[in-house]
């Protein structure tokens, strides 16, 4: 009896808190109240309900909470806002509206799987394509996707050997894998030293997130180390990466010539602050593309100047950003801050969504302009052929790259630029650097053959 009151108060407070918080969200999103009232009518046709039978459903796995939230949020904003602007500006993909639902994973693999199961059958035709946004989750979903016949686009992450479409027909690591990124970095280090042979005797340290994500580049770096006789020291950082004192004390002791930073979330900014603490020169630290964005360097402020990272895409705005600002933000439908539009990770999310949309467009050219199944979209991705002209038409000039995928090459691009933090923004510091496919291709072949053998797969030889 004596707890009855407490119980009632608690039960009552739950909906109250929910309603209260819901309102808070709404207010903080719209900068000026008069616009917010208008947004209710404007949202029609832009945010489409998942139950709409004429809309193409795209699941969104995102993380807006936890230690990876500073990086997960801009990616999710860029991704979802591109989908919204396609609905607002173009009225969907060839008239087929896009519906989407977000599911919060917190960058945890188990929760990602639950989200995958939750979203895979939604919409009229089920999920078109999954973007797991986490390498650990990609590994887990790779085992499930072929059964459910849903393709995965893992832009710049995931299994490096999955570029071999003969063994991994459902995985598409478009625009680069970690092996490619690592090879680009080593090639760059060779360039600035006057040739890869001059790396002999150098010390390179890899500071990596102790997870499948961080471990991916190791085989490539080890191979390169044996080819060019440089010394590779591997320094793992435990999730979530806020404790790195011992790692950087070790770096101070060993004084490696270069440090490669393979981090994500709070790990990156912590690493740069620790590097400052041990006075390791920032211009000798090179990050992966997931360690080269504003949230990684802003906390370190001026100390981060000179830090470089390999880049899938840098910050800045194209025509589509202006469309997003006018169609969404001016109508109070933006999901983040206005200033966030055009940041590095925002653009990564945007580019990712553009790939999804173009894949669906390609698939529509074969299967008709209606909501498509995952299997049909898979054909669209594998036959994706984006030209410079398409990119112009999409308003993405300079923020998307031509790519032509095939069964034997699900990656499509093996070159990247580096960009440098100048204290205020990221700017490209090098020209395009290509990874050496003579090194990459045999590794992909042997790793995917091993996978096929362990999984007992019949590899379909690629025709093209």
């Amino acid at each position: 009896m004596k707890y009855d009151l407490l119980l009632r108060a608690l039960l009552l407070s739950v909906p109250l808190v929910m309603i209260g918080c819901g309102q808070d969200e709404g207010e903080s999103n719209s900068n000026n109240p008069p616009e917010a009232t208008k947004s209710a009518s404007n949202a029609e046709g832009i945010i489409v309900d998942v139950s709409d039978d004429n809309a193409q459903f795209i699941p969104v796995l995102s993380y807006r909470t936890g230690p990876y939230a500073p990086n997960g949020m801009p990616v999710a904003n860029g991704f979802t806002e591109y989908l919204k602007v396609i609905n607002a500006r173009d009225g969907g993909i060839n008239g087929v509206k896009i519906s989407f639902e977000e599911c919060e994973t917190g960058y945890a693999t188990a929760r990602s799987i639950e989200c995958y199961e939750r979203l895979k059958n939604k919409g009229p035709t089920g999920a078109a394509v999954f973007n797991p946004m986490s390498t650990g989750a990609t590994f887990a979903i790779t085992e499930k996707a072929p059964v459910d016949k849903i393709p995965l686009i893992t832009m710049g992450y995931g299994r490096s050997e999955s570029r071999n479409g003969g063994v991994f027909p459902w995985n598409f690591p478009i625009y680069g894998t970690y092996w490619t990124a690592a090879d680009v970095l080593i090639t760059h280090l060779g360039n600035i030293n006057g040739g890869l042979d001059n790396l002999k005797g150098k010390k390179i340290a890899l500071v990596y997130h102790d997870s499948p994500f961080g471990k991916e580049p190791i085989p490539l770096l080890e191979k390169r180390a044996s080819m060019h006789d440089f010394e590779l020291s591997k320094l793992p950082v435990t999730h979530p990466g806020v404790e790195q004192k011992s790692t950087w004390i070790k770096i101070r002791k060993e004084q490696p010539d270069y440090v490669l930073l393979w981090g994500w979330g709070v790990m990156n900014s912590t690493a740069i602050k620790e590097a400052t603490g041990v006075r390791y020169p920032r211009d000798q630290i090179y990050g992966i593309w997931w360690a080269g964005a504003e949230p990684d360097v802003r906390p370190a402020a001026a100390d981060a100047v000179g830090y470089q990272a390999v880049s899938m895409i840098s910050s800045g705005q194209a025509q589509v950003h202006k469309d997003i600002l006018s169609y969404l933000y001016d109508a109070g439908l933006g999901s983040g801050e206005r200033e966030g539009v055009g940041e590095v990770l925002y653009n990564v999310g945007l580019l990712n969504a553009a790939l999804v949309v173009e894949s669906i467009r390609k698939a529509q050219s074969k299967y008709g302009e209606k909501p498509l199944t995952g299997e049909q979209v898979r054909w669209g991705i594998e036959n994706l052929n984006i030209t410079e002209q398409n990119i112009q038409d999409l308003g993405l000039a300079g923020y998307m790259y031509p790519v032509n995928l095939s069964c034997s090459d699900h990656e499509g691009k093996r070159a990247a630029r580096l960009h440098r933090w100048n204290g205020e923004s990221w700017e490209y510091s090098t020209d395009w650097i290509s990874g050496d496919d003579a090194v990459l291709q045999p590794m992909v072949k042997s790793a995917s053959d091993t996978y096929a053998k362990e999984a007992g797969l019949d590899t379909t030889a690629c025709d093209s």
Partner: protein
Amino acid sequence: MFYREAGQFKTSYKADQAVFPIFQDKVFVAIWLLIGFVVIPMLANEYVFRAIFIPVIIMALAAIGLNLLVGYCGQVSLGSGAFMAVGAYAAYNFMIRIPDLNPLICFLLGGLSATVVGVIFGIPSLRIKGFYLAVATLALQFFTDWTFSRIDWFTNYTPSGSIAVQPVAVWGFVFDSPIRKYLLCLTVLVIFTIIAKNLVRGRIGRAWMATRDMDVAAEIIGIRPIFAKLSAFAVSSFFIGVAGALWAFVHLGSWEPLAFDINLSFSILFMVIIGGLGSIVGGMLGAAFITLLPLFLNQLPIWLGINMSTAMVSHLEYMIFGALIIFFLAVEPLGLARIWQITKEKLRLWPFPH
């Protein structure tokens, strides 16, 4: 009215010592088994199997295992995640290194490997007690985290340290669909529950409980503490090891060392505490509570049609989940199992309470 043992006379020792001495209990268990094996497979869809039933069943197995140690023998352990990891990695290694070995045998061997580790790390329990023992088992957690991410042999030298396994196949029968996986896990849970229930009713279980209640007194009446404590560690880690193998092979299908981190240990301990220490059904109830409540809270706003950002939903999820745990522990410190017991007592008198 519904739950009255009047007229049920026990005329033999056998009847007195039965697992379920009361007729209604037998009916109840039979109904639950019927629901589990017949009704749910007919009604549930894929999401419900994969996201709800399979994880809850496997976690229930782990929670029952930990309950044997914490609830029955009184030895606090924070190493459940580690035992699950040992079970999973050992099963994986048996499977790839001994070709054509039956996966079910691999799971049992995984459990046995966890037993060996459990006994070794249980040795400190002979000297240290309570919180200090919890800290000692915490060491095991970090030890296994380190082992499985650093020693490549255990992961068969996979470059990224992530292991992918194929669906379990026994004599050509492949457990690939959600319903088959569900039935496999449920069968394992039922078998292990019967074992656990009978263990705690017998000599060993009584030795554990005596040790839990007062170890000095237990020693004086002739219970060897070394036997009682180590056997509790052994049986408990065997259960948890098998649960770990199932978690990895049946639920995840692909995993990394992070899947068995300290958070998993904590949540299994919470399951035991919230479910009810020293109760088999408590393990199951606790597993269901801890696994399902976050999912429920996470999806509630969508069902209610409240439009809010996913970030807000997950913040609320944590807040309400935490508040509910405190609430439950304040209202019923003995756990969900005790609430179940009180319900049964109330049902005895209903509808004519004194």
